[in-house]
């Protein structure tokens, strides 16, 4: 029973481990660029969680194998649990084969596809901010920046 739980959940646990590595980099390191890297690691872990949920064991990528058969014949529900036994009694082997194909869930793929591109766009904004901070303070380390700020306030 325990082994069962492991096999059906280890994906989530590895994802959580990676997420926590990213989180740890984010909160324990002072360098701003390292923080951006940590944020990226966290982000990729979230992507993996979504894609893990969309996977069906024994499924194929959601690109229709035989769209004409699937479109005209309505040989049953691909992607559903009943897709496996949806063969039509062997009238046409090609269509039957297409009907037995199980597709993984396309919806998480769509969400993550756009999220990746948005992720790189926001990362570039973060890096641009880091570059400006470096130019303004001469350092990227958080504690040095707050020290410089404190010195400036004291000099006022």
């Amino acid at each position: 029973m325990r082994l069962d739980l492991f096999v059906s959940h280890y994906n989530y646990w590895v994802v959580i481990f990676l997420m926590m590595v990213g989180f740890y980099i984010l909160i324990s390191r002072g360098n701003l660029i390292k923080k951006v890297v940590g944020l990226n690691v966290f982000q990729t872990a979230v992507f993996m969680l979504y894609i893990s949920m969309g996977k069906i064991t024994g499924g194929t990528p959601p690109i229709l194998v035989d769209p004409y058969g699937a479109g005209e014949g309505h040989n049953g529900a691909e992607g559903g649990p009943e897709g496996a036994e949806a063969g039509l009694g062997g009238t046409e082997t090609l269509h039957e084969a297409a009907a037995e194909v199980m597709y993984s869930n396309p919806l998480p793929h769509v969400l993550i596809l756009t999220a990746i591109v948005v992720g790189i766009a926001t990362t570039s904004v973060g890096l641009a901010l880091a570059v400006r901070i470096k130019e303004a303070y001469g350092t990227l380390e958080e504690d040095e920046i707050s020290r410089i700020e404190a010195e400036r306030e004291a000099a006022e």
Partner: protein
Amino acid sequence: MSIVVDIVLFTLLGAAGFALLKVRNLFAVVMLAGIYSLLSAGLFTVMDAVDVAFTEAAVGAGISTVLFLGALALAGHHENRPGHTPLLPLIVVVVTGGALVYGTMDMPGFGHPGNPVHHHVADHYLEESYDEIGIPNVVTSVLASYRGYDTMGETTVVFAAAVGVMLLLSGARRPRSRGGGGGETAGEGEGA
């Protein structure tokens, strides 16, 4: 077979993540981040998300590495040794991770075709999209047609990010000066 690939890739990913944590030369960190992205692209392929793997390989291992290198060339690549004790972040991370693992216990198992996530709208997309949209790649038809508003929003966000980078980086570069002259750069806040 696929489960072996799965486990090997996850192990490598874990190792890459750990190395990212430990290495302090930021050039090496950026290269490791590229490797991390490429490995996760492989994992996406194993999990049937070919479009996502494609994007991750092109974005994460390609453009993102170039942008990080550009930023490092401008901002220097040395990271200081963390000054404070890492105990508190470690506790926070362990507690958060524990709570999340506890949360997964109620989640349906990985890869079962009967999971609720596969039966909300995904059935409709897979069964009807060829009649309604007429293209075999379901991801494209969902992306561009069923969820066209989403995609338009994301395109706008990408554009807005570019505007942000242009605003941040296109001004003239001021010479950096510490102490007295620094009022110029931080001057907006102080009004000096």
